[in-house]
């Protein structure tokens, strides 16, 4: 008995010693976790993140947030961690104490990240900010937990759902809880069934992703329900897919229209085959680049308006170049299409090489204003702001141009000259200057197109080449000399292309469209909207 007692005492002593040493070295789980960031190794950084997150330390959110944006720094020499506070002018703080770092060490370098670490950070921040007072943060947190399926976040989720008043965030929170439940073995089958229903209601690609990825150990009934849900979601998404394709088609069509609309005037209305049309577009894009460079250097606050400033300037630059070209070259070549073709072709090469010499052969970085970045969801269609802006802008340009031709004196004279030059001249219209102005207008509109295209394509000397063939295709298909034909032609080609692309692939779709146009032109040589009457014979 006594011996037993001794043994027990000894055991207790050993236990105490262990406990003591443990508390002495592991004074604080937070401090311990921070030390992992010193290793400059991804695995150790992940341990650090999880440690900091589970420590419950008040600085945890700040530290992980700083890590996410590359503001968590470490000094290998002093074995200390610091963070820069974004809310506080990027001042340096000691991550251990949260006090301002008076004399920072010289060897500070940021803790490095890779995609795996970033993914973990997103999940951790989601779990940490579920109860944030900022609704935007709560929503982001709910979406992050939906992806991370962090089981430890479940109690916080319940708490957040109970407190949430905003219905959209509540929905996101409930969906997040559903994924956590589905991926946790310990939850009941009834809970899982309810969770599948919640995910089914969400009804998008991510929902399918969750249901497809169910763990192998899930109950068979839940699996069956999930399979049903996938079929149902896919069926409803198929309809949305059609709408999505239609939207992509409209968006591609508007780009084609924008590139072709200037050509519809120079080729369609004037009958000049202008191979340098693409280069007018390119000049517009480079004007945008120059405008942005000046704004970046002198007035950085104006950056979001840079495109509005670039539009009139691009119109002027390309328009003036157009007038110059018309006066110096094209006016001597009217009625000689082959010579015009060759001359403007040479001109396009000269313009390209001139820009290459002036700006260099590399692409130029044209920034996207903040209001044109990102996307929003309309039902299950993702609509990107830059494409939407281009569609709206194109229609605006189209309407303005139509109005100009229809309701202004210049427009009237343009139509008169193109329909019957001799008659117009004898009515006192100076046909020479009208020719120059019309060509300038067509080129100027190409310049405006360049501003818009700089947002979705590369700004390089070759920019125009990619659009010239498409532009001719649109104008010829729509019917030469008719702006409405150009509109319908561009949209038809765009939509046809986008419906063919998922089936045939991008390369074949392009070929198919070309073949279809050739066949169509055989049947209707004058295009969709043919001009009738004596004007045609001129």
């Amino acid at each position: 008995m006594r011996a037993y007692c001794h043994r027990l005492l000894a055991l207790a002593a050993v236990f105490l010693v262990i406990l003591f040493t443990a508390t002495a070295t592991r004074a604080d789980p937070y401090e311990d976790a921070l030390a992992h960031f010193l290793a400059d190794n991804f695995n150790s950084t992940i341990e650090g993140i999880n440690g900091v997150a589970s420590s419950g330390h008040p600085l945890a959110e700040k530290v992980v947030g700083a890590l996410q944006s590359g503001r968590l720094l470490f000094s290998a020499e002093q074995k200390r961690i610091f963070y820069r506070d974004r809310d506080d002018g990027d001042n340096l703080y000691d991550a251990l104490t949260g006090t301002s770092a008076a004399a920072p060490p010289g060897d500070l370098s940021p803790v490095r990240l890779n995609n795996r670490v970033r993914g973990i950070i997103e999940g951790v921040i989601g779990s940490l900010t579920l109860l944030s007072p900022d609704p935007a943060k709560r929503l982001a947190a709910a979406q992050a937990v939906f992806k991370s399926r962090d089981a430890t976040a479940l109690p916080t989720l319940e708490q957040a759902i109970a407190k949430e008043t905003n219905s959209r965030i509540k929905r996101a929170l409930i969906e997040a809880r559903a994924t956590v439940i589905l991926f946790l073995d310990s939850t009941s089958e009834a809970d899982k069934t309810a969770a599948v229903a919640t995910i089914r209601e969400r009804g998008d690609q991510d929902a399918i992703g969750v249901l497809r990825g169910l763990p192998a150990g899930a109950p068979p009934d839940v699996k069956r329900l999930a399979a049903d849900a996938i079929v149902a979601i896919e069926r409803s998404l198929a309809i949305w897919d059609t709408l999505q394709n239609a939207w992509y088609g409209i968006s591609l069509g508007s780009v084609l229209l924008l590139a072709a609309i200037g050509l519809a005037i120079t080729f369609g209305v004037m009958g000049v085959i202008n191979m340098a049309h693409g280069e007018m577009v390119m000049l517009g894009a480079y004007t945008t680049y120059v405008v942005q460079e000046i704004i970046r250097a002198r007035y950085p606050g104006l950056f979001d308006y840079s495109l509005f400033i670039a539009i009139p300037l691009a119109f002027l630059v390309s328009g003036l170049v157009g007038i110059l070209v018309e006066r110096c070259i094209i006016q001597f070549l009217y009625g000689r299409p082959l010579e015009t073709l060759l001359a403007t072709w040479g001109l396009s090469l000269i313009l390209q090489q001139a820009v290459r010499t002036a700006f260099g052969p590399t692409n130029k970085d044209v920034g996207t204003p903040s209001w044109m970045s990102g996307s929003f969801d309309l039902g299950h269609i993702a609509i990107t702001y830059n494409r939407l802006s281009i569609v709206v802008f194109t229609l605006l340009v189209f309407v303005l141009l139509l109005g100009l031709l229809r309701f202004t004196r210049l427009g009237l004279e343009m139509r008169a000259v193109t329909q019957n030059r001799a008659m117009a001249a004898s009515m006192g219209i100076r046909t020479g200057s009208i020719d120059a102005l019309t060509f300038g207008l067509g080129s100027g509109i190409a310049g405006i197109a360049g501003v818009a295209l700089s947002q979705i394509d590369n700004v390089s000397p070759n920019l125009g080449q990619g659009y010239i063939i498409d532009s001719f295709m649109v104008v010829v298909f729509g019917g030469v000399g008719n702006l409405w034909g150009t509109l319908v032609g561009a949209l038809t080609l765009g939509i046809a292309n986008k419906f063919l692309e998922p089936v045939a692939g991008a390369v074949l779709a392009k070929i198919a469209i070309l073949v279809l146009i050739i066949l169509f032109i055989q049947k209707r040589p004058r295009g969709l909207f043919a001009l009738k009457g004596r004007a045609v014979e001129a």
Partner: protein
Amino acid sequence: MYNSLRPAVARPLTRRRLLVTAAGAAIGAGLGFPAFGQDTIKVGILHSLSGTMAISETTLKDVMLMLIEEQNKKGGLLGKKLEAVVVDPASNWPLFAEKARELITKDKVSAVFGCWTSVSRKSVLPVFKELNSILFYPVQYEGEESERNVFYTGAAPNQQAIPAVDYLMSKDGGEAKRWVLAGTDYVYPRTTNKILEAYLKQKGVADADIMINYTPFGHSDWQTIVSDIKRFGSAGKKTAVVSTINGDANVPFYKELGNQGVKATDIPVVAFSVGEEELAGLDTKPLLGHLAAWNYFQSIKSPINDTFIKTWQTYTKNPKRVTNDPMEAHVVGFEMWVKAVQKVGTIDPDKVIDALPGIEAPNLTGGISKMLPNHHITKPVFIGEVRADGQFDVVWKTDGLVPGDAWSDYLPGSKDLEADWVTLKCGNYNKVTRTCGGA
């Protein structure tokens, strides 16, 4: 009147354009470069200075001029000055062959450094064989080739594509299970994707988990493809995109990815054709965290790289000028050529070709690359992540140098082939039938 014009618009475009560019290039080439003196060793530089490839190739011409100038400062080669002969093949593949012939027969260059696209390399091959000259080819390519007259200083697929896929399969790379192989529609992406597909299947990836997609050159409307990738990626398995999309088309591709909210943490894209030079011309915001696989990055710290960057920026008088992987390939290739010529003491092509295998030269990342008997070189492989400043953070690298493999081990037709110009004297020796001459 319009009727008669319409066919004229659509058809003769390409042929005429070729003619005009050809004429322009001929004028450009005629200018040449001033000679140092009577007795020089001439080095040909065959890179496009105009047309679509000018964006990438102009830099390589500049780096060659710099290397030749540096070598001349060190006293030239074999007691003679080196002289650069620059021609402009204008991104026009048949013109490459014409210009190569001109360099070898008219200018009598001792070696040519040049070409970028595989098409251009294939078009000059017969010329180099016929006239027995030497070509150094500095760009990563699809492999499946080993010629006696060509030295491949860029990466073969096993030095770029295969390690990149290995990385994405690893824990740090995100353990990808589903793969999108997206590329521009020409020989390099097609062959590389064929190799990758075979490799992935060998690793147990199911057919349904591989999506292959090709787009035309300069493709700018990525909406459909990006949403296809998104859909493919939402199957509950980690998805990665391996991109062999060429140069220009990358910018709208990454923009669309950013706009549709595809983040690198969800679906990482590893690119084989996006380097520092390409990033210099674009807004890097939508690319952050996406990956590139190369054998060199400007951001890699090594004394030799620091010196090289400094020399390059002084030479181009632009303190912001970036360096990239094909430039490094030229640096290594040029050094190897110089050493081989010094070793045999002559510029006689047969002797230099025989001397090159086994020659070692330091690469810019701190290792020593070696020319192998199959005319490929050993290289380290790095995976870099795009940073906000247009540079890369190296997140992974191979343990040592990887020897370039001319014939892929994963393609049925080529796994039995071996290239060895030292003992076998053959570029496509069949190990099974024991004959030289392919499958």
